[in-house]
């Protein structure tokens, strides 16, 4: 099965990184989250209700909608915070944060479960430094418009209705959905990032992840 890969790119000022990433990641997760499944004895299931919430950005002229789930929001903010820290403060830089939706495929012991991605969203971020308040004001508006375009792009991709994992049985639900949250149920996802410093060399987190996965045995 081929993994669907979508790329987005934004140029933002340093202090806009958090909000821009949250806006895009939450927009994607809004579409990739359902209500909690409640399986019934006959093999059918009912689905909980997903609430939504408007969020206004402080540093960007933009508002977005996210799933009403503090747990999910905390998890995304944590990942974005780590990305921001890795990007450094105030200096120009480039980085890429990726949101990967995957399915788990159970393997026999001693092998760990295989994670098979079925959709990957890569958001490339260029951080720019601005000289004065006037430029920052223009940047606020421009980035807001750009994020609007990215939301439209995301919606366009999602509404192509391409591959989605089949709705799982009760025993398989943890292979498809993240059931750890108490109010919503997003598809299994992970967030990775790569930082490109100004010299152009790339510091990848893939090695780290590989080692982590191996140690999870």
């Amino acid at each position: 099965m081929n993994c669907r890969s979508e790329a987005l790119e934004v140029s933002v000022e340093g202090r806009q990184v958090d909000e821009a990433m949250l806006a895009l990641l939450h927009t994607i997760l809004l579409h990739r989250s359902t209500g909690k499944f409640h399986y019934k004895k006959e093999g059918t299931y009912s689905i909980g209700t997903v609430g939504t919430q408007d969020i206004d950005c402080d540093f960007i002229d933009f508002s977005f909608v996210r799933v009403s789930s503090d747990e999910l929001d905390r998890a995304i903010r944590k990942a974005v915070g780590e990305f921001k820290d890795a990007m450094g403060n105030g200096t120009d830089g480039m980085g890429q944060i990726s949101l990967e939706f995957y399915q788990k495929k159970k393997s026999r012991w001693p092998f760990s479960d295989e994670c098979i991605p079925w959709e990957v969203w890569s958001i490339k971020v260029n951080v720019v430094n601005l000289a004065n308040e006037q430029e920052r004001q223009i940047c606020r508006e421009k980035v807001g418009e750009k994020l609007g375009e990215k939301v439209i792009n995301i919606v366009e991709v999602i509404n192509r209705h391409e591959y989605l994992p089949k709705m799982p049985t009760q025993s398989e639900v943890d292979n498809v959905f993240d059931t750890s949250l108490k109010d919503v149920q997003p598809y299994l996802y992970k967030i990775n990032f790569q930082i490109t410093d100004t010299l152009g060399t790339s510091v990848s987190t893939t090695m780290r992840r590989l080692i982590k996965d191996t140690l999870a045995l």
Partner: protein
Amino acid sequence: MDSDLSPQDKKDLDKFIKFFALKTVQVIVQARLGEKVCTRSLSSPTGSDWFNLAIKDIPEVTHEAKKALSGQLPGIGRSMCVEISLKTSEGDSMELETWCLEMNEKCDKDIKVSYTVYNRLSLLLKSLLAITRVTPAYKLSRKQGHDYVILYRIYFGEVQLTGLGEGFQTVRVGVVGTPIGTITLSCAYRTNLAFMSTRQFERTAPIMGIIIDHFVERPFGNMGHMHPCNYRAPGEDEGAYNGVEDSQEVCTTSFSTSPPSQMGIPGKEGGVPQQVPVQPCHGAQAEHGRVSSCPPADHVPATPSSSGEDAETSSRSVEVKSVSPCDVLETTFTRKVGAFVNKPGTQVTTASLDLPFAAFAPRAYDLEENDPMVQPPESPATSSPLQGSLHSQGSGESGGPAQDDFVMVDFKPAFSKDDLLPMDLGTFYREFQNPPQLASLTIDVSSQSMAEDLDSLPEKLAVYEKNIDEFDAFVDTLQ
């Protein structure tokens, strides 16, 4: 086409489409209420949350949507549209966007109604939630208040996009294939808003003065088929005048065929009620087009090309008067009296006017009094002929150029900030824009000194002759 669909599936599909249409309307209208929307996630289903989304149902909106549908469903050739428009407190209105729920003939017969179609409709509603925050009308709706409100209208049938002006853009929210056709949800939005940036709806000091006659409790009166998304009573900190002035300025900018007139001499209605002139705009500057209150039958949007001044007898609430800039410079001037004004024009001074830029006018007045160019200081008496010739002072008549005309525009020089300094760059620039000429460089001064020199020459010669011995001795020392 329908023969492949089981009766149960057909019934389910009709129900899905009906409730999808109703929820679509709710999402759109609620996104234009001007407030942030927040609903809770519930892990256990309540059974009443269609498409597993917590979307509240505003009863009036549901009622309007059902009324528009009249028992029908959106289908091929029968589109359901939600039109969002803006209406100012002065009665001007403008269509902002039209959301269309349509169906075309492309069928997907293999798709499962109760599962796939339902989930895809749920996804489409989520997309609608996201897209409604992205179109330009969202920012406008967040700032609505007593200056303007956002209205909605639901209609069924053919899509009407002519009111959106030229160059409107379309964004497709999504599509869902069903066995009876493909449901498409899209939005066409006006792009003329680009120059009506949201900043223009913020409370900023007006460039043109506008008189507010009165504030009507329900200024929006008969809105016909339009319904307010949310009309809130004014409760803002800043004065109502500014907001309405802004919207008027924006509306006039968008509705008149010519650029707005440059300046006016406003007065607050409460302050000087009788003295404010009703002066028609100059011929060169077109009148500001204003559409009188909406006709009751249909929602008729004001198009950008509309012009013509309607004398609103109910209130001369918003008027822009223009006078030539040089009028302001004079310390006294006669107010022009417009038609229907009983009181004769009076001589008034700038000081008695309640000008928004009074800071500049009196300053000009003061400067004229104290300006050395206009009233130069007297020439000091020369203490000695030598001194007199070398240091001739007294500018005599003013040789400086007349002060430039004031331009009654809030002067913001480039790169200057509205700073906290008592003298900002703008003030500095104004004050030192026309410095007095150097006394020694004026022609009058030089000619006068020459005349004086000539007159004093015989005296000087006499003195030199008397002291000729001293001079000779001095010359000897040099040799």
